[in-house]
């Protein structure tokens, strides 16, 4: 973050706490600075925001619409609420949707115990999924020499796509199809191991919130992601 000399500070309230924001700062950044936790799965410090997971939705006084905290900019005089009963209910349902969408079986997952989706379920208190599982049959791509992509565990947060495009610059990863059929792909939907553009840098694996992207050879619960590398990379790069 570049700090300018003459920034106009905006004052607003988040959950009743007075906070000051820089020009252009998002509610999510501001909340974090002030120790207010807002759940999110698709936001990732260091890459652009996507606004797709809808977990960080917040209420703003005077507006009927819920907005994603990751993309809402702080404005003077705003009154923001991040934990109203309504929001809590919706978040739990959204998480249910995610859990029912693919085949998330924690007991046999390499990320068991280190998974953002699992932690989110614990945080929001989703002990049961109140919706029927969709049980899609999805492939596992194990063609890459170092990494594996298991579509069964993917939540389509697009962190891998963004880090591949914005940080590594390879643009190997992308998304195909639409609606419930969206899948993460490599190049022209080719086996990962055959990709000529992939640099095998592994950034996508490290930023993946679940066990969808993993290193080869990891057993249940062994895949611990290095979450700190991206902020470091960003900090050390010149603007």
């Amino acid at each position, binding site marked *: 973050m570049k700090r300018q000399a003459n920034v106009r500070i905006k004052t607003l309230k988040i959950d009743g706490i007075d906070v000051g924001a820089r020009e252009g700062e998002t509610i999510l950044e501001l909340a974090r600075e002030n120790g207010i936790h807002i759940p999110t799965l698709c936001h990732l410090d260091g890459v652009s925001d*996507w*606004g*797709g*997971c*809808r977990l960080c*939705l917040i209420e703003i006084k005077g507006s009927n619409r*819920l*907005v*994603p905290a990751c*993309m809402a900019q702080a404005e003077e005089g705003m009154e923001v609420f991040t934990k109203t009963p309504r929001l809590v209910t*919706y978040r739990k*349902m*959204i998480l249910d*949707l*995610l*859990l*029912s*969408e693919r085949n*998330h*079986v*924690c*007991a046999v997952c390499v990320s068991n115990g280190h998974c953002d989706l*699992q932690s989110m*379920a*614990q945080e929001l208190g*989703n*002990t*049961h*999924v*109140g*919706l*029927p*599982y*969709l049980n899609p049959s999805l492939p596992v791509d194990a063609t890459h020499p170092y990494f594996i992509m298991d579509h069964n565990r993917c939540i*389509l947060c697009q962190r891998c796509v963004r880090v591949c495009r914005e940080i590594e610059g390879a643009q190997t990863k992308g*998304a195909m*199809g*639409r*609606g*419930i*059929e*969206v899948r993460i792909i490599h190049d022209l939907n080719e086996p990962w191991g055959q990709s000529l553009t992939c640099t095998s840098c592994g950034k996508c694996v490290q930023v993946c919130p679940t066990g969808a992207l993993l290193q080869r050879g990891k057993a249940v619960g062994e895949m611990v992601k290095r979450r700190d590398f991206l902020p470091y990379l960003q900090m050390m790069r010149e603007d």
Partner: protein
Amino acid sequence: MHERFDEITQKELADNRAAQHVVKVCVAAGCLSSQSAEVKTALEQGVNGRSCKVKGVGCLGLCSEGPLVAIEKHLPDGSSQNIMYQNVTPEDAPAIMESLDKEPVARLLCPTDVPFFQRQQKIVLENSGEIDPERIEEYIAADGYRALITAVTEMAPFEVIEQITRSGLRGRGGGGYPTGLKWVTVAKAPGPDKFVICNADEGDPGAFMDRAVLESDPHRVLEGMAIAAYATGANEGYIYVRGEYPLAIARLKTAIRQAQRMGLLGSNIAGTTFSFNINIRLGAGAFVCGEETALIASIEGRRGQPRPRPPYPAEYGLWGKPTLINNVETFANVPTIIRKGGDWYASIGTAKSKGTKVFALAGSIVNTGLIEVPMGTSLRDIVYEIGGGLPNGGVCKAVQTGGPSGGCIPASYFDTPVDYESLKELGSIMGSGGMIVMDESASMVDVARFFMEFCMTESCGKCVPCRVGTVHMYNILSKIYQGEGTPRDVELLEKLCDMVSVTSLCGLGQSAPNPVVSTLRYFRHEYDELIAGANGSQTAVAPTTEVAS
């Protein structure tokens, strides 16, 4: 410029009057698919030295009875007499030509003194069925491009916007956002580069108004866009048109070329410093691209996925520049408003919804086709008067408006005047203007399921509620429709409806539950009956499965 237009007009009028009969054959898509091109050829071959001019024109409205042929007979006293033929085949051509100076061919006559024709008030469709859409001269002779010339030579941009604001025109694409306000926002946005986009990605199943306008009177849309560009300070425009409309695309291309040649598009329009160019971009079959930000993504050559607003396209639009997006019908209203004044336009319609609206009537109704009526006309008038009621004396159960974002309005509410607010109150929306009439045989649960299937497959997949929520809702609706539903399913369905509409990213997801909500509101008994019929399986509930943790 006006003088040149006068010349063209005089010449056109003289040409027109020189022939004793003008035979107008509808060559819009509806009639073309029932062989109107062949009818036109046969009629042309039948001219045989008669004082008669055969020309192709845009949509005459009554698509179900096509091909339609209108004949204008010039009487010696200077007045003219009009008759219309329906269901004309190429074989009928000789009989029609023979009858020109005699009595009309009775078996083909289409009565025009009926409410379908009499009750309409045409602004957007005023030239539809009158002029040849492929000749700019005819559009000019019908007062076309005068508004543009007046605007750029005699009015300041803010004066143009003021007329639009006074007219009370609201977005005809569905939302009903005040057009004047949108224009002001773009006009005030800083920066030299701005864009005007015409949304012609008419995706609502059951809506074909925009298609008819583009096929019947493409210049009207170009003129509207050019006026908007002048008012907002834009120099480049895009028309984003559905790839499924090849005829509309072809006519637009022709129209743009003609307008450029006449100096009505391009650099220094009418000798002023104002320049404006229009490009065509083809949609490729994605309903979500009707959403502003998704449409912009598509023009930029990307996947048509929306992004959260704000910032609105008026500030941050195409390539990050201030962008005005209006739909076809909105732009088509503009030239007339500038020509006749905002106050004139505001005198039509209701307190909050001004002007006229084009509706596409379809489904179980006698007169299917296009109509244009003042805002505030009741559904009863539209269905029973103008639409001619249901075939075989059928009983109307409901009218679906607004497509997949709208709802079903039961017959008991038919006296409601049709405007943005009252439709919203009834749980539906104006939408782009599709109206599907349903008779007693239609299952409302099936209708809800049909629209949910639509939303499910048209969801872009970006946000979770729409991507996954629509699938669950569709599955539940299918389950209920197949007689396997439980009361718990309806509860869950209601919860999902609320959640998806509140938490989805864009308009598609936010409005996806509307057809379900409105059928639950008015036809709950149909859901209940299907569930009661589900032979005692009430105990089964959606499986709750434990998350391993």
